């Protein structure tokens, strides 16, 4: 009998801390859970269907497992996984807000899930109306003119935006080579700049934590295609000089790109379009409650000002005077950036979230997000360093640099201890300009009681023993994980083990 670990809840921490075996260990030759529709189609042999040079003799080896063991395996894995539905997730820059169950229902309507993306417009008017209405709503929220929903994530939105920049400059005074980004920018920004065919020019932040406008002016010339900004920036601070910045960049013929990862902070309060931005991407999986799925799928629509609209990716759904939606390719479109129409079901989720909140609800979202962040910031004052202790927006950055000097308590250890306290950790060591950074974003869906509990836990940790913290976490499904070893002795698959 093949050795397989059997059906004990070996992984579920509900019963001890054993590992969950892989499906390959649970596999037993000859088993399957599969079951197919009876079709009555003639049952030709493989040899009659596929010529021999192509026909494999052995089917690819998959795990062989019963439905019962399959369900138990993955259910046990979920008991080894933290999630928003289990508790607070103050992961800075990620906007881990609660994802309403209503949107799960909306995105699983068969009339949305069972539609082929290549079906002609006449058969998909509902989807096209949904997408067109969502483009509209996102434009109102950002103060832009037109949008594409194709980019499947924020980084894809960034690259799309940079390609729009290229297309624009190509037809307006010729190509430029540099894109400016602040030193506090998220890593996807410079990475996208490179893929966009540009060279990254970094502008430092000043002691306020904002773009150093003087330094920026020094870097601006007619070879600058544009600037990418996050506002509020990754320190959670609003770029107060944004109007001046926009003026300066536009003066040299550059374009302003808005990284919408932090849009949650300003919903209904102010709009990138009004700040002078030309291109905006949004992370629907942050601001508009599309769940993160353990790392996606998300959606990263891009909205632009009127002058850039002709360059948008296509096709886009457009409502005709006859009340019928058709697919149209913008005149000077840069082309497709997705196999089909983007992460459609994620878009449907976001649309249902916008409908449920409405204009008033979205502003309340921003208000509560900013209120929570500032309440927690002041709660931590005197306990952690607050390198930029000024009114924050939806998030703020604390630091353990003093605690590290004093007793060796590192941001990483605070993060691991917080896991033991029952909370997910904040983002650590980002932005790079802050030493021992703890980037904390409570989001608007956490109650004041949750904030109090989180503040108390962070205070306990700061007051606690640093040496002890180095051994945290101990109450989690596994203890502190050896990341160095993973890279040193790479085991990327089950089959790669000796």
């Amino acid at each position: 009998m093949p050795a397989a670990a059997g059906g004990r809840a070996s992984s579920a921490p509900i019963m001890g801390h054993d590992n969950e075996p892989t499906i390959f260990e649970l596999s037993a030759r000859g088993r399957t859970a599969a079951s197919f529709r009876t079709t009555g189609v003639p049952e030709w042999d493989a040899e009659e269907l596929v010529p021999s040079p192509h026909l494999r003799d052995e089917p690819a080896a998959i795990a062989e497992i019963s439905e019962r063991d399959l369900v138990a395996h993955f259910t046990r894995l979920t008991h080894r996984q933290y999630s928003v539905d289990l508790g607070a997730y103050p992961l800075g820059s990620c906007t881990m807000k609660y994802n309403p169950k209503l949107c799960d229902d909306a995105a699983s309507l068969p009339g949305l899930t069972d539609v082929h993306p290549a079906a002609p417009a006449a058969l998909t008017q509902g989807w096209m109306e949904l997408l067109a209405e969502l483009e509209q709503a996102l434009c109102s929220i950002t103060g832009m003119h037109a949008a594409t929903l194709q980019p499947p994530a924020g980084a894809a939105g960034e690259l799309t935006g940079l390609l729009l920049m290229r297309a624009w400059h190509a037809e307006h005074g010729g190509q430029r080579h540099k894109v400016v980004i602040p030193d506090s920018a998220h890593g996807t920004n410079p990475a996208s700049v490179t893929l966009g065919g540009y060279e990254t020019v970094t502008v430092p932040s000043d002691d306020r934590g904002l773009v150093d406008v003087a330094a920026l002016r020094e870097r601006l010339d007619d070879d600058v295609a544009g600037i990418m900004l996050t506002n509020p920036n990754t320190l959670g601070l609003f770029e107060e000089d944004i109007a001046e910045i926009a003026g300066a960049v536009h003066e040299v013929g550059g374009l302003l790109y808005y990284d919408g990862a932090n849009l949650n902070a300003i919903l209904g309060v102010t709009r990138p379009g009004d700040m002078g931005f030309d291109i905006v991407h949004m992370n629907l999986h942050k601001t508009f409650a599309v769940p993160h799925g353990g790392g996606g799928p998300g959606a990263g629509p891009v909205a632009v000002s009127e002058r850039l609209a002709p360059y948008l990716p296509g096709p886009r759904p457009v409502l005709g005077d006859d009340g019928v939606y058709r697919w149209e390719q913008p005149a000077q479109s840069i082309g497709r950036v997705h196999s089909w129409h983007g992460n459609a079901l994620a878009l449907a989720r976001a649309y249902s979230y916008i409908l449920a909140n409405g204009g008033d609800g979205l502003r309340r979202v921003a208000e509560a997000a900013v209120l929570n962040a500032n309440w927690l910031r002041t709660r931590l004052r005197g306990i952690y360093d607050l390198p930029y202790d000024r009114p924050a927006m939806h998030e703020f950055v604390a630091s353990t640099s003093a605690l590290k000097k004093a007793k060796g308590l590192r941001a990483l250890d605070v993060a691991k201890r917080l896991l033991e306290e029952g909370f997910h950790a904040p983002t650590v060591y980002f932005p790079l300009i802050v030493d021992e950074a703890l980037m904390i974003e409570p989001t608007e869906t956490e109650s004041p009681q949750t904030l109090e509990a989180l503040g108390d836990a962070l205070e306990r940790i700061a007051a606690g023993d640093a040496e002890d913290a180095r051994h945290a976490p101990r109450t989690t499904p596994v203890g502190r994980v050896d990341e160095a070893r993973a890279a040193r002795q790479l085991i990327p698959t089950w089959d790669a083990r000796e």
Partner: protein
Amino acid sequence: MGHYVPHTDAEIAQMLSSLGLSSLDELFETVPEALRLAGGLDLAPGLSEPDTLAAMERLADRNRRAGRDLVCFAGGGAYDHEVPATVRRVAFRSEFVTAYTPYQPEVAQGVLQALFEYQTLLCRLTGMEVANASLYDGASACVEAVNLAVAATGRQTVFLSNGVNPQWREVLHTYAAGTGHQYVACDLAGGLTRWPDAGEPAALLVQYPNYLGCLEDLAAARQLADRTGALLLVAFDPVAAGLLHSPGHFGADVVVGEGQPFGTPLSFGGPYLGMFTCRREHVRRLPGRLVGETVDADGRRAYVTTLRTREQDIRREKASSNVCTNQTLIAVAFAVQLAWLGTSGLRDLALRCARGTRYARDALLTIDGVEPLADAPIFREFAVTSPVPGDVLVERMADDGFLAGIPLGSEYGDRGLLVSVTERRTRDEIDAFVAAFEKVIR
């Protein structure tokens, strides 16, 4: 209004006063007056939850559903496969759905192990050694494959088969505007790619089976790659792994593809799954997340994202890719569906697709006026021409309750229709489809 903000007015007042503020507006004092949005957003007020769902149902009802309203014979990268209850109910448990990227491995072993299993399964399907934790879709997987090849070879030109999904090729060209990559379009003859016999390409990119459903000669492509010092990049249909040799068997360097066929409904095109696998020698150029096995402080087996120095958050402008959020949840569903199938189920699935396809193709070709668009051997999809243009055909057959297929662009000669048959199609459905087809082209 703001259903999902828990704060009561009393709590808001209390929190504000603890901040020394007297109104919520004062929270935004750092936003210059001039930029403040007067009069609020130009959006309708919020709807109640039942009203919201009703609004979404109205939209959903404006689509014709595959299955209930339309029997689906369309493929082209999006296939009408069964997604069983088991997969739906397990892969979408809220711990998987509402987690972030596993930055804290101690509390993310669920997602990490599921991804480790996904990576292993994907390598077994493709015959490769390393897989990443997913990319966006088939198109973006092709883009990243080309980026890897260009970085690995230092060459800019890629031989691109016209047998590759046209939309994916469109995306490749869109992104080439930024990277400056050059593509040499390689025509099809009899359904198979005719490669230039010389040149210094960074890579050959071919789809197996290709967009017309034909089985490309990967051995020949490998030889050309060897002759020219190029990498062989193959876009692969994972369902084919049940019957066809893997691209790895033919010596592919990078194997990518669209993972939708396993565990993901048609979903109007997304979220789908970009599969990415390669030989181990390229692992340091791998785009996106990679999960590896390691141990915890007590020596217990544990999983973690690794070789992170490739990634944008650390390597920034020199990163192997800009991808951050990917399609993890879809990768988990893929793994669950594949494990549900198992070894015999995968073969059975592939066989059923191939049988239905053969049956439908033979029947269609008995209709006079219907001709095969290519005569090369096929697997689960095929192209035909008929007196009626594909788009007209599709519109007309919709009235009979069929999504007849995908009209082919002029590059494949006009009047082409791409037809796909999955394991879900019954003989009766196929017979009715053929009858309707015959009626419509009369």
